[in-house]
């Protein structure tokens, strides 16, 4: 048998298979009409529906907030769950960064120089630039993690430090910054938050690194949270 004849046989066989599969295809379905009340209600009921064009704005916002909340929970129980890495977003980091920068804002009347806005900008830039540099470092030493995934993890893991900043602000409202007891409280709170942030983010990021470079990837993260923790601690009024 020649080769061309065999090829023709095979082609025929494929066409037969294709015909059969087309015949078995289910071509029935509902056509969604945007104006129709029933279809809109059905879309709104089912939150897992990928069609989000027709849903109310409130539903969109609530769903995004819920996703942010789920990630916050992951930061507090840093299991080896890839969910935080897979569905990354930058809403949480933005929220935390603005909160932190607003908490560490300096009073404009302070004659230390700069005014309130300068300190806000400094904290904001330190956080984003630090996250970018740490991410670049982990990419450069060969980490298998995408750029924005890493920024997302680093940003979400600021949550313990943001809480520490809130606590420190409350402690400062209680008494003057000169009291040793209150100062010790702030040191302990910030140190605990710093440890928690570092632990949580390294749990996520270290997995993406080759085993012999885990320390090299974790050290910049440690330094980054240390600087943020220092900014929180040094904010005395």
């Amino acid at each position, binding site marked *: 048998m020649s080769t061309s004849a065999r090829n023709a046989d095979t082609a025929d066989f494929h066409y037969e298979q294709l015909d059969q599969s087309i015949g078995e295809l289910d071509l029935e379905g509902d056509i969604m009409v945007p104006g129709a009340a029933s279809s809109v209600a059905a879309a709104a009921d089912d939150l897992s529906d990928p069609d989000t064009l027709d849903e109310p704005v409130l539903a969109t916002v609530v769903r995004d907030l819920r996703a942010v909340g789920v990630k916050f929970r992951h930061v507090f129980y840093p299991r080896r769950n890839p969910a935080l890495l897979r569905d990354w977003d930058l809403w949480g980091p933005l929220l935390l960064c603005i909160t932190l920068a607003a908490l560490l804002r300096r009073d404009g009347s302070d004659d230390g120089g700069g005014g309130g806005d300068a300190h806000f900008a400094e904290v904001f830039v330190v956080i984003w630039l630090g996250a970018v540099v740490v991410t670049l470092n982990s990419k450069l*030493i*060969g980490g298998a993690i995408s750029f924005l995934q890493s920024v997302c993890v680093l940003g979400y893991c600021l949550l313990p430090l943001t809480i520490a900043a809130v606590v420190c602000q409350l402690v400062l409202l209680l008494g003057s910054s000169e009291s040793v007891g209150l100062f010790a409280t702030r040191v302990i709170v910030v140190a605990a938050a710093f440890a928690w942030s570092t632990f949580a983010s390294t749990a996520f990021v270290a997995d993406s690194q080759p085993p*012999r470079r885990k320390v*090299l990837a974790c050290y910049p993260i440690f*330094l980054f949270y240390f600087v943020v923790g220092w900014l929180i601690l040094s904010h*005395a009024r």
Partner: protein
Amino acid sequence: MALSGYVPAADDQLEFQDFPEDEVGPAAPNSFTGLPDPHDAEEKDDLLTGDRTQASFWTFEYYQAFFDVDTHQVMSRLLGSFIPRLHSNYLQTYIRPNPDLYGPFWVCATLICTIAISGDLAAFMQTSGKMDFAWQADFKKVSIAATAIFCYAWLVPLILWALLWFRGSSSSYTFLEIACVYGYSLTVYVPISILWVIPFVWLRWLLLVIGTSTSGFVLLWAFWPAVRDEGKKIIGIGCMLLVGLMHVGLAIGFLLYFFQVPEYTTGSTITPAANTTMSTTTTKMPSNVT
């Protein structure tokens, strides 16, 4: 006769065959060549350092080549940068196979943080007796520290490399190697700048002398072969003197700029009572820093 008998046999054999998936696994190339697997991480460093392919300047892989180090390599380079060894040259034994930029960059970043933070801490302790001192992270100090350290770690190697190149040195030190040595040579200032928080002037100067002499010795010893067979002795010795003086000068500059107590109140000096509170806080604070 022999040819006509041969052709049909070849026709039968020259057909595509299906091999099962498990036979054509990732280990298959080894069975043909007998060479070790190049993807094996253990063997990669020894085999591929000699003929590493150079990626294009605009690609990410080009920069990844500068960060191709492992933890134990970085640790030994950090330690070797301030532990003097007479019988081995730091640049040729530690840096030579592949100079990296990971260590220099993060040593500089760490040094900026520790110097700015411990300078703040020292100022805080020495003025904690006065109520009117507003203690804050001083961003001016951070930016000055960053400018000084990064300029030192990049410009001095550039000048040194240009000088060696201009004089036609036989050592063939590349710019990357010199920059790497310079970056690691700042390592010793990280623990020293943390210890500078302790407010005793004699201790600070003692630490400075110890740190600069050990790391300065390693630095000079690394560059000595490059200028040893220099035609004009005066240029070689001047070069070494410049390297040493800049290394010491940087440390003295750190100590004088970041750790001198500014006078915030008019005419009042630190009382013995303030000194005792300082020493009690001293014992507590470094545990926070380290």
